[in-house]
């Protein structure tokens, strides 16, 4: 629970109640049928299309757009789901501006790409509203697989395994499935409890038993899973949080991921307390999500401080623009030194940084960002949880088939060394790991 400084100006209900609804409404409202046709008409149906190459799940984008254009919306959704069963969520949260839409030839030609993300949402919403999956499971194989983590990687893996006729038990430590889709993404990107609706939709394939509230190393063990199942997939993400490791951190710094999760879990946002002044340390999507949502909850001054330059931020330019449009201030080239609460001032002291010969270095000059609450969003780490498994750079080591160092154990998503912290990449890895597991199970 985000708490901030003791005795600071931290309050719930900073805004009139109607404003919360408006602030947390859909960031990109869905396209109407006519808008979708106009948007689809702009697609050139390129050969070996650059957008497909740019998509981590390799969705046949020109094909699904052509299917929208020809009124075959169900076929369009199938084209998407064939590659990415979480196509609905990816349509909402993918940084399309750095993936498919950046690669779109019309971005190059006119600086105005085909609206691939919104078109993808149009097709997947249509099919999910119909409530049916365009798939039927293969004949049961009699094999059983355990999937740890019901986030994007785990859901994609479980679905593909179930599709191939295997029986799957899907474990998650949290009380709801979805992983970061449920707990780690700004509310305005996925309104209407979409993460749960999508999880339900994916599970409707059948053959997947969901076991919630079961964490690896707590209720279940890897040894036990390897004993009880024919194959195991680890997709539990990164449960640990990087600390700032600065003086006074314990006084007021909260984890931005927890804040986002808390917000997602709060029905009445006017009950959620937020500081009058908020500082967020970090430069990725999580930093932007935490900062923007602080602002939308009624914080007066919100500042993101990032230790390097604008072009180094993991948050896309679009996300940075969004933050600034919402009134968030972004300061570059500064790193936190200590947390101050001396009666006169509350906040975080930063030191300016620069790119030196040996890497990032402090200049010695400092400043203080006064704040009532501070959030750290500087990345997550794998919670070891007593795993006796080979790591690479602090994450689980996998080969091209997403095999770990342990026999019969595959892994994918943020917890593996090949992860890049994108939902869509996690989906691709879960899917491809499932294909590798299927090959092994039917060999």
């Amino acid at each position, binding site marked *: 629970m985000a708490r901030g400084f003791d005795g600071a100006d931290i309050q719930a209900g900073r805004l009139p109640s109607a404003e919360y609804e408006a602030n947390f409404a859909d960031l990109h409202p869905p396209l109407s049928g*006519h808008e979708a046709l106009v948007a689809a*008409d*702009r697609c050139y*149906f390129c*050969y070996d299309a650059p957008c497909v190459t740019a998509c981590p799940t390799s969705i046949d984008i020109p*094909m699904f757009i*052509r*299917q929208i*254009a*020809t*009124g*075959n919306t*169900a*076929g369009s959704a*199938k084209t998407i789901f064939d590659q990415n069963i979480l196509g609905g969520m990816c349509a909402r949260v993918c940084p399309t501006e750095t993936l498919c839409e950046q690669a779109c030839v019309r971005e190059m030609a006119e600086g105005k790409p085909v609206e691939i993300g919104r078109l993808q949402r149009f097709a997947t919403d249509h099919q999910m509203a119909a409530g049916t999956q365009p798939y039927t499971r293969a004949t049961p194989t009699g094999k059983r697989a355990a999937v740890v983590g019901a986030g994007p990687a785990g859901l994609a893996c479980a679905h593909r395994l179930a599709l191939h006729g295997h029986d799957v038990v899907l474990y998650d430590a949290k009380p709801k499935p979805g992983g970061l889709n449920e707990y780690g993404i700004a509310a305005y990107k996925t309104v209407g409890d979409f993460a749960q609706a999508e999880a339900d939709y994916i599970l409707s394939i059948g053959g997947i038993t969901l076991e919630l509230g079961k964490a690896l190393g707590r209720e279940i063990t890897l040894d036990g899973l390897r004993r009880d199942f024919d194959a195991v997939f680890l997709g539990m993400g990164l449960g640990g949080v990087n600390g700032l490791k600065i003086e006074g951190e314990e006084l007021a710094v909260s984890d931005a991921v927890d804040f986002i999760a808390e917000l997602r879990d709060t029905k009445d946002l006017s009950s959620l307390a937020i500081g009058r002044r908020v500082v967020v340390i970090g430069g990725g999507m999580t930093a932007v999500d935490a900062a923007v949502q602080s602002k939308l909850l009624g914080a007066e001054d919100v500042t993101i401080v990032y230790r390097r330059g604008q072009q180094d931020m993991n948050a896309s330019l679009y996300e940075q623009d969004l933050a600034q449009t919402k009134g968030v201030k972004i300061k570059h080239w500064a790193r936190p030194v200590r947390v101050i609460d001396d009666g006169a001032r509350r906040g975080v002291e930063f030191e300016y940084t620069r790119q030196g010969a040996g890497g990032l270095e402090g200049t010695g000059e400092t400043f203080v960002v006064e704040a009532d609450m501070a959030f750290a969003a500087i990345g997550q780490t794998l919670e070891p949880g007593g795993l006796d498994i080979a790591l690479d750079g602090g994450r689980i080591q996998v080969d091209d088939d997403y095999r770990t160092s342990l026999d019969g154990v595959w892994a994918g998503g943020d917890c593996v060394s090949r992860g890049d912290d994108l939902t869509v990449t996690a989906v691709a890895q879960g899917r491809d790991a499932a294909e590798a597991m299927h090959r092994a199970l039917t060999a």
Partner: protein
Amino acid sequence: MADIRNDFAGIKSPNPFWLASAPPTDKEYNVVRAFKAGWGGVVWKTLGLDPHIVNVNGPRYGAIWGADRRLLGLNNIELITDRPLQTNLDEIKRVKRDWPDRAMVVSLMVPCEEVCWADILKRVEDTEADGVELNFGCPHGMSERGMGAAVGQVPEYIEMVTRWAKQNTRMPVIVKLTPNITDIRYPARAAMAGGGDAVSLINTVSSITAVDLDVMAPEPTIDGKGSHGGYCGPAVKPIALNMVADIARDAEMAGLPISGIGGITTWRDAAEFMALGAGNVQVCTAAMTYGFKIVTEMIEGLKNWMDSKGYERLDQFIGLATPNVTDWQYLNLNYVTKARINQDMCIQCGRCYVVCEDTSHQAIASTKDGKRHFEVIDAECVACNLCVNVCPVEGCITMEPLAAGAVDTRTGKVVAAEYGNWTTHPNNPAKVAAE
């Protein structure tokens, strides 16, 4: 999932999408790529006698585009194959052997002498192709030499050559028709009289797509001159649909298989041709615009649509719309509709108003209580549909039928419940007397 396997005049293919005889089916390399992409069959680009013809070495195509450069119509002056006959025959034989489940039809065009036809048919039979298509359609170049459309424009020639073909081969014979005539039924009936197993249509429409105003010559321009070409693509689809329907509903030609051609770009276009009576379809311009991969959209789209309508096989919907194509004189004159503008959907552009006011019946008001507001005046509306056609918002303006017994304020007459057409109308001098 719907079964879209196709049997056209005894020629089987895994789906009803064939590539038409044209540049995309000119040689083995292209055809193999097409089959890999999923096309159900091809009509190999037209073979002729050796020495093979030559093509121009300047541009062969012209085009018209929509505002976003969407290709709407293509015009070509390319002739039949410009490769040696034996080269083509060898490739056809090899491709058919490697792809036995796909339809392989060979298009032919030789001079109007029986010996020429007998000879080439024998050689095509040796390839084990599934059938032949007689090219009586090409409107450019070859027609100047008495072939192509020059044959297709004379029903007697069509019948004669078709008969020669039937007498000289066991293969099914499809006769490809030119639209550059006045009434498509005459050449089609001639093909049937000559023993043709099927017709395919339309071939391209004689056209000049544009004029280069700097050099003052038609496009495509070859060294300052141009020649009319054959027009195809989405722009010709309405012409083709009408000709297909004309043949499909002609009593004399009942049961004659029709291969529909003309601007087919999506599954929906194909379904429309087949609903009007085409047994399958042939595609060219769409492939030449987007590549062979578009057949995936056509196949999946057609299947999804059939599933949504409960059609399990193609023959369950082929020709379903044919009986609803009729002559004007049989249209129900007692069916009265009025335009209705949905005020919630209206974006206030005023296009409906201005076209009705300037060019039609002054049946839309532009203001209400001094404010911009567009509404139909029933007493003036003749239900012409122009406002619906020019409205940029689909579904905003609709034509709503008046119920029987209601008064049409334009005519002051009560709408009759019974059907009544021109043949019995009092204004018709030749009306059939009521019994």
